[in-house]
C-alpha cells in the first residue's frame, strides 16, 4: 500500500462525445474548459469516440507527453468500457489502475435529455469527482490464481448436455449435475420439433447416450447443488446425491457384489404394489414407487420414490442376486472442486389455471400444449392418439389459444413473449391435420412470431394445410356441461366482430417461467436475475453467456425464453467461454483486496466476523495482535473496511481517502 502523494498528481481528462449520445445534450467544450481549471489537471481533450483506436491513442500519447500520473475518461459507463480505457492507460505506460471513469452518458446525457444546462453542470461535477479520485489512485497488480482443470454444468436438458459435451470434448473433466433421475430435460417430453418435424426423442437420445458414455463427463443425476464456495478457478461445490434406493453396477462392484447393480430390467417395478402418477407424463400415466421416467432414460437406473414407498421389500426380492435395491439408502453430500460453471436450469410451465377465465383444471377438455405433446407422442400415454380427456373421443374441432399467460400485462400472467409457443402451435396444427382426417385447427393469436430460419415458410405451409387463424385474444372459455364441448369467446380483430366458437378440445399455449429451483441455485452462485426471474447475463448484447460472477456462465432458457437451436447455440457459447480460463490455466483477479494498516490496527478483531469469506484472521506479529488478510479469499467487497472502528483497513482502489476526496470534491470543490 503506497503512500499517496497528492501533490505530484498530473491528471489527463478525456471527454467522449459518443457521437451525439453525449454531445447532443452536454456541452463538451464547456466541460473541457472547466476541466482545465480543476486542480491537478494538466491536459483536457475530447474526441467523437474515445473508445475507438484514435481515441485510445490520444490517451496513450498524452500519458507519455504530459507524464501523467492518472487518467480520467468521461464517457459511458465503467461497466462497459473500464477494461478498454484501462488498456489504453497501460498502453501509455501507466499502471492500468490509475484510471477512473466519469459516467456522463448512461447516468447523465441519456437520463437528462431535455435539460442540457443541468446535464452539463452534472458532467462538470462528475469530472471533478473523478479527478479527485484519480489524483489518489495507486499502482495495483492483479493477482493471478491457478484454475482447476474441471468444469461443472448444472442442468441436464439439451442445453446442459451440449455444454457438457463441448467441455468434455475439449478435454476438460466435466461434472453434469441433474436434479431428476435422468437427463434429457424438457426436450425429451416433446413429440416433434419445428419446423423440420424431426422426432424429438430420435435426435435427443443419441446425445443422451453420448453424454453417458463420454469419459470426461461424470454424470450426477438425482443430485442437487447444496452449497458453493470459492471463486473463478476454484469453486468448491457441495452436491447432495439424493437417496436413489438403487445402486449402479459400478457402485455394486465397490460394495463387493459381483455382477450386481441395476441393469434396468424392470423386474422391481413389475412387482411394486404402489402406483403414483408419472410426472414425466404430466400425471397422465402411472408409474410405480420404483420407477424410470420412460424407456430411453440415461442412465438406465431405477429410482425409488421414498415418499411413496411402503418398504414391503418385494423389489429387493425380485432383484435377487443383483442386490441393486437398497431401501436404507440415505442422501450423501459430496464436494467437488471446479474451475468454471455453466448454469442451464431450464424452465417450468406457468400455472395457467391462474388465468381462471380459460378454465384449465376446471374443464376436462382444456389442456396445455405440453400435455398435448405427450398425447400426440407415439410413446406417450395414449400411444399417440389425441383424445378428449372427458370421454376419450377423437376431437374434430381443436382451438389453440396462443399467448396464454404470455404478453399479459394484467399482473396475472407474464409480460414477456415466451417465444416458441407460436411455432409449436403451428406444429400442433400440422400434427392433428396429419393424424385426424377432417379435423379443423382454430388458432387464436395476437401476432404470429415466426422469427427463425425456415419458420415463416412453415407458417405459410400450415396456412395452406387448412388451419384457421383468428386474430384475437380469447376472452373466456365456457363448457357445455352436457357434451363437455367448449365455447371459445374472442373478438376477431381483423373482421371486427365477436366470435363464439364451439370446439371439442382447447389447447392453451401456456407461458413459461423460470424453473422452480432457479431462485435457490442462482443465489448459491451469486448470479442476478431480471425482473421476471430469468438469470441476468453480463451484457445483453456483448456478453450474453457470461454473468457478473466471474467463472459462471449461462446456457438456454434460464437466461430468457428461447427455442432449441438458440439454446444449443448459447450452450456451445457458454461452454467455449467456460473453457477459456481452464485452458489458460490461470485467471487474474481484480486487485481490490483489503490490506491491514498494522500501525493503526488495534487487534480488536471486530472486522473478522464481518467478512463473509473468512478472509480475515488475527495473528501475532512483533509481539502485537493484528489482523491479516488472506488475499486469495478476499473478494474486495470492503465490508470490513466500512466497519473498522480504527480506520485501519486499506481497501485497494476504494480506499477511505479516495472516497472522502470524491465526497469533498463534489460538495466543497467547484462551482458552488
Amino acid at each position, binding site marked *: 500500500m503506497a503512500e499517496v502523494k497528492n501533490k505530484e498528481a498530473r491528471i489527463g481528462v478525456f471527454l467522449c462525445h459518443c457521437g451525439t449520445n453525449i454531445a447532443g445534450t452536454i456541452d463538451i467544450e464547456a466541460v473541457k474548459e472547466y476541466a482545465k481549471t480543476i486542480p491537478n489537471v494538466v491536459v483536457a481533450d475530447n474526441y467523437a469516440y474515445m473508445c475507438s483506436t484514435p481515441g485510445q491513442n490520444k490517451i496513450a500519447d498524452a500519458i507519455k507527453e504530459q507524464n501523467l500520473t492518472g487518467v480520467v475518461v468521461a464517457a459511458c459507463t465503467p461497466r462497459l468500457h473500464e477494461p478498454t480505457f484501462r488498456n489504453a492507460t497501460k498502453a501509455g505506460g501507466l499502471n492500468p489502475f490509475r484510471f477512473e471513469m466519469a459516467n456522463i452518458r448512461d447516468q447523465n446525457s*441519456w437520463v437528462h*435529455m431535455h435539460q442540457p444546462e443541468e446535464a452539463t453542470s452534472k458532467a462538470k461535477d462528475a469530472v471533478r*469527482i473523478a479527478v479527485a479520485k484519480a489524483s489518489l489512485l495507486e499502482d495495483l497488480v492483479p493477482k493471478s490464481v491457478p484454475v482447476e482443470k474441471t468444469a461443472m454444468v448444472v442442468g441436464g436438458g439439451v442445453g446442459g448436455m451440449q455444454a457438457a459435451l463441448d467441455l468434455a470434448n475439449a478435454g476438460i473433466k466435466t461434472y453434469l449435475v441433474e436434479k431428476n433421475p435422468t437427463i434429457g430435460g424438457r426436450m425429451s417430453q416433446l413429440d416433434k420439433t419445428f419446423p423440420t418435424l424431426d422426432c424429438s426423442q430420435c435426435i435427443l437420445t443419441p446425445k443422451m447416450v453420448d453424454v453417458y458414455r463420454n469419459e470426461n463427463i461424470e454424470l450426477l443425476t438425482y443430485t442437487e447443488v447444496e452449497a458453493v464456495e470459492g471463486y473463478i478457478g476454484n469453486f468448491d461445490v457441495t452436491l447432495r446425491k439424493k437417496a436413489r434406493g438403487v445402486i449402479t453396477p459400478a457402485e455394486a462392484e465397490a460394495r463387493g457384489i459381483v455382477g450386481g447393480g441395476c441393469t434396468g430390467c424392470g423386474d422391481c417395478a413389475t412387482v411394486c404394489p404402489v402406483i403414483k402418477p408419472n410426472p414425466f407424463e404430466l400425471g397422465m400415466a402411472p408409474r410405480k414407487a420404483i420407477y424410470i421416467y420412460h424407456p430411453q432414460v440415461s442412465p438406465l437406473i431405477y429410482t425409488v420414490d421414498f415418499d411413496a414407498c411402503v418398504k414391503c421389500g418385494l423389489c429387493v426380492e425380485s432383484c435377487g442376486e443383483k442386490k441393486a435395491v437398497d431401501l436404507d439408502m440415505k442422501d450423501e453430500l459430496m464436494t467437488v472442486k471446479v474451475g468454471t460453471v455453466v448454469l442451464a436450469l431450464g424452465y417450468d410451465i406457468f400455472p395457467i389455471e391462474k388465468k381462471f377465465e380459460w378454465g384449465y383444471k376446471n374443464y376436462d377438455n382444456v389442456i396445455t400444449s405440453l400435455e398435448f405433446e405427450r398425447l400426440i407422442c407415439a410413446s406417450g400415454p395414449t400411444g399417440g392418439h389425441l383424445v378428449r380427456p372427458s370421454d376419450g373421443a377423437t376431437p374434430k374441432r381443436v382451438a389453440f389459444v396462443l399467448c396464454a399467460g404470455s404478453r399479459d400485462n394484467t399482473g396475472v400472467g407474464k409480460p414477456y413473449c415466451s417465444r416458441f409457443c407460436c411455432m409449436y402451435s403451428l406444429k400442433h396444427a400440422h400434427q392433428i391435420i396429419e393424424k385426424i382426417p377432417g379435423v379443423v385447427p382454430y388458432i387464436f393469436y395476437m401476432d404470429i412470431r415466426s422469427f427463425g430460419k425456415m419458420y415463416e415458410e412453415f407458417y405459410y405451409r400450415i396456412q395452406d394445410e387448412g388451419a384457421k387463424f383468428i386474430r384475437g385474444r380469447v376472452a373466456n372459455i365456457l363448457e357445455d356441461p352436457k357434451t363437455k364441448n367448449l365455447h371459445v369467446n374472442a373478438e376477431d380483430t381483423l373482421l371486427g366482430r365477436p366470435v363464439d366458437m364451439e370446439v371439442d378440445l382447447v389447447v392453451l399455449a401456456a407461458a413459461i417461467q423460470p424453473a422452480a429451483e432457479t431462485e435457490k441455485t442462482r443465489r448459491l452462485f451469486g448470479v442476478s436475475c431480471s425482473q421476471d426471474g430469468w438469470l441476468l447475463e453480463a451484457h445483453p448484447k456483448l456478453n450474453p453467456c457470461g454473468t457478473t460472477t466471474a467463472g459462471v456462465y449461462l446456457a438456454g432458457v434460464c437466461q430468457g425464453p428461447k427455442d432449441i437451436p438458440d439454446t444449443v447455440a448459447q450452450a456451445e457459447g457458454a461452454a467455449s467461454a467456460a473453457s477459456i480460463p481452464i485452458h489458460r490455466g490461470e485467471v487474474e483477479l481484480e486487485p481490490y483486496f483489503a490490506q491491514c494498516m498494522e500501525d493503526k490496527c488495534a487487534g480488536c478483531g471486530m472486522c473478522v466476523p464481518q467478512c463473509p469469506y473468512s478472509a480475515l484472521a488475527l495473528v501475532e506479529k512483533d509481539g502485537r495482535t493484528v489482523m491479516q488478510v488472506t488475499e486469495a479469499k478476499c473478494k474486495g467487497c*470492503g*465490508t470490513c473496511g466500512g466497519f473498522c472502528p480504527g480506520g485501519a483497513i486499506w481497501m485497494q482502489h476504494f480506499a477511505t481517502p479516495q472516497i472522502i476526496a470524491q*465526497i469533498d470534491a463534489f460538495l466543497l470543490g467547484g462551482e458552488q
Partner: protein
Amino acid sequence: MADENWNPKIIAIICNWCSYAGADLAGGARIQYPPDIRAIRVMCTGRIDPLFILKAFQDGADGVLVSGCHFGDCHYLEGNFKAAKRMFLLKSVLKNIGLDDKRLRMTFVSASEGAKWGSVMTDVVKTINELGPSPLKEFAK
C-alpha cells in the same frame, strides 16, 4: 423553502453490481429523472463507512442516498445487510444531532430495475426539496 436559487446537493453512494447497473439500465431505457444527484460507485454498500455519510453532511450535503442489492441478492452475500444495519443506526445518530433522518435514505435497486432507479431518483429529490437546505450547510467549508 428557503432560497429560490437553491438546488439540492445530493450524493448517492451505490454498489457496482446492482444499483449502479440499474442506474445504467435507466440510461439505456432513456428514463428521465431530476439531475440533482451525483453518484459515487463502490463495489458493495458494505464498503460504506458511516463516516463517509457524516462527512458528506459535514460538507453541506442536503441528502445522502445509499443504494444496493436486494436482500439475498448481494454479490458479496451479505454486505447489503450489514450496510442496512449501519444506516439504521446512523439515522438515529442524525436525529440526535438535529438532522432530519429523511435526509439519509437506503434503497434496494437491482440491476434490472431501471424504472425503479428513475422513481427512486425522483422521490429522493422530491423529499430533499420538501426538507429544504441542510441546516449544516452554513458550517460547511
